[in-house]
């Protein structure tokens, strides 16, 4: 159940049976709040806002027209000032979600601006998220935005919020200015590990990407191809020894599908058998770092003709206990909590994907939904 049109039929009136025998919380690992620079005004120095208004922002993605409705669900156009109410109604209440993890992706772009703009903008959106989303709705947790191309300032931003339990992970872009495993970013990894925060890496990125291939012409191509930013990131972090240096660091691959992870592990291990001498700082097979440090969110869930093939493909990753449900609300390819997962998943695995795994990663109590 993935298309915009079909999801509209899933309203309360359609008589969809909710899953009542759920043994764990339902946690949605990828919910997108909207935002714009103007909304950041209360937390910005007037001269910063004026400069941004006059001269614009510069770290852009590459635009691909979304054909219809700007990549949003057709029914997700709130009246001004009523977005929170819409998300509560269409997502949290409709599906009885206990927790939604917000992923405002400002840091991808704002975090790569010049320091005197990047730092205040990333701070402003964290304050905006607190005020507009976390304060009024306790079912939301969020991802912290940091100016990742200015690691010292990013560390300060992590320090500032590390005791606010509502922030569960730190947003990193898969397409950094340097290779993501570069020591430039290690202060961020160190601060994340110290604070017990995961890194959340959502697909979607700046224009510095696809360097070995080039840009496709169409959104259909770009949207699927972008998964490989996550493969590139995993390869870089493992090879550069990030997980030797930060053995507790955890990385969440968000909205990048999952089944590629078996192939990546096989090839890394196969190559390591021939080329391992080049990586003397690694003390385990690449797949072991991958399995011990990476997590996934499910949306956009792969849809083989036989849904059971996806169960097999998940098993091949060896990471069933690191897969977390996500809907990607309010985007066009929303996955429904009640319908997206293959029916043949064993019940315990299904419950873990719907909530148990996220509880483990984010330190959430599986009964009270409180964060430790």
């Amino acid at each position, binding site marked *: 159940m*993935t298309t*915009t049109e079909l999801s509209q039929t899933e309203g309360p009136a359609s008589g969809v049976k909710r899953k009542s025998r759920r043994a764990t919380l339902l946690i949605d690992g990828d919910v997108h709040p909207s935002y714009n620079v103007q909304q950041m005004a209360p937390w910005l120095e007037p001269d910063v806002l004026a400069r941004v208004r006059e001269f614009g922002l510069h770290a852009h993605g590459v635009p691909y027209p979304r*054909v219809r409705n700007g990549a949003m669900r057709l029914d997700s156009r709130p009246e001004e000032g009523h977005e929170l109410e819409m998300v509560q109604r269409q997502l949290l209440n409709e599906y009885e979600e206990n927790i939604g993890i917000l992923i405002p992706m400002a840091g991808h772009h704002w975090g790569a601006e010049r320091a005197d703009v990047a730092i205040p903008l990333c701070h402003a959106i964290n304050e905006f998220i607190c005020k507009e989303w976390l304060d009024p709705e306790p079912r939301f947790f969020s991802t912290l935005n940091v100016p990742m191309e200015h690691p010292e300032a990013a560390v300060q931003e992590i320090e500032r919020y590390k005791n606010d339990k509502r922030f569960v992970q730190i947003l990193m872009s898969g*397409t950094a*200015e*340097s290779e*993501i495993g570069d020591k430039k970013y290690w202060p961020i990894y160190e601060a994340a590990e110290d604070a017990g925060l995961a890194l959340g890496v959502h697909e979607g990125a700046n224009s*510095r*990407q696809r*360097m*070995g*291939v*080039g*840009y*496709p*012409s*169409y*959104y*259909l*191509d770009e*949207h*699927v*191809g972008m*998964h*490989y*930013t996550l*493969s*590139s990131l995993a*390869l*870089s972090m493992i*090879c550069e020894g990030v997980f030797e240096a930060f053995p507790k660091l955890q990385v969440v691959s968000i909205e990048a*599908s999952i*089944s*590629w992870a*078996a*192939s*990546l592990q*096989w*090839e*890394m*291990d*196969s190559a390591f*058998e*021939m*080329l391992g*001498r*080049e*990586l003397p700082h690694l003390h385990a*097979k690449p*797949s072991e770092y991958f399995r011990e440090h990476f997590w996934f969110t499910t949306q*956009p*869930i*792969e*849809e*083989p003709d036989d849904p059971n*093939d996806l169960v097999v*493909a998940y098993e*091949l990753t060896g990471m069933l206990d690191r897969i977390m449900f996500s809907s990607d609300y309010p985007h*066009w*390819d929303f996955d429904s909590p009640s319908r997206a997962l293959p029916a043949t998943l064993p019940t315990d695995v299904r419950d873990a994907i719907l909530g148990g795994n996220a509880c483990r990663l984010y330190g959430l109590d599986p009964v009270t939904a409180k964060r430790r």
Partner: protein
Amino acid sequence: MTDIIRGAIDTDVHVEPPSIDALRPYLSGYWLEYLRGARSQLGSVYGPSLPTSARPEAREAGTFPPRTYEALLAQLLDPYEPRAVILNSVSTFLAGQNPYYQAAICRAVNEWLRDELLDKDARLRASICVPLLDPEAAAAEIDRLADDRRFVQVLLPIRSDTPWGNVRWRAIHDACARNNLTLALHAWGGPATTPTWTGYARTYFQDYVANAQLIAPPQVLSLVIEGVFVRHPELRVCLQELGFNWMPSLMWRIDKDWKSLWRETPWVNRRPSEFIAEHFRATIAPTHFPSSATASDVAAIARFLNAENFLLYASDYPHDHGDDGTRLLLDVLGEAGREAVLQGNAEKFYDLQLAPTG
């Protein structure tokens, strides 16, 4: 090391001219003078010190890959008696950024292949080397050689600065199609391409893994979604030295997005995975399975991929990809599937017109 199977059709064997001097008979006066001053040599993406560049017996032979017919005979043709072999000379990937020099070197290497190898053994076939920075010149080189049916495909590196399905490359698509030649995408890239999504590899390990894991999937998407197979319903693409166990995941994902986004590219008028199954094949060397992979791992991928139709045997001689599960793969395919992968698929895909086996 990678297993070499006797008596098969081997769709990826590497050869190179012994030196740039061996190309002198095929170069004009201008290029001879250019080379004399520039001291250029043939490039290599397989450095001699790298463990993956040569199997032990190739290393013992001194130079690798084979640079003469005699070396190819001694190292591969005599010991393994392949029914047919497709020769790849990938040094032209690194023939600099001067499009005219690229064209001259590719033409020279193609003539060298013809004189020094194809003319000496009826089992040999070859890929056409083409300049990568001038699609019209590439098309002209394809047209020039196309009547010689011993050239069975056109060789491009998997890495590019613009995806291979893009309209910028239409002259190459069209030349392959009008001459009934397969388009081969082979691991590695030209001198100005990078392996990771954000730039440089810091290790050979990353460089090596990137070909299949980071670069090949988006190239497949590009060829399908840009409509290359709608314009050319008979065009075939062979993925060489790029593995295949990443393909099922890609097929599931692109089919899913297509169900909703088809309006953007209405010429993609069937499920994208159907275009992939119909128009693409992949060579089996390397399989990219580690020694820890189990028969059930390999069997699952083989089933998802319909591997008995999709895969073509290759030794990738002289490269060594370790204990990569070639035998495990052939075993899980069953008798008929194994025979198809070892011979039948390639014979049909390339229309090789071989004498029947005795």
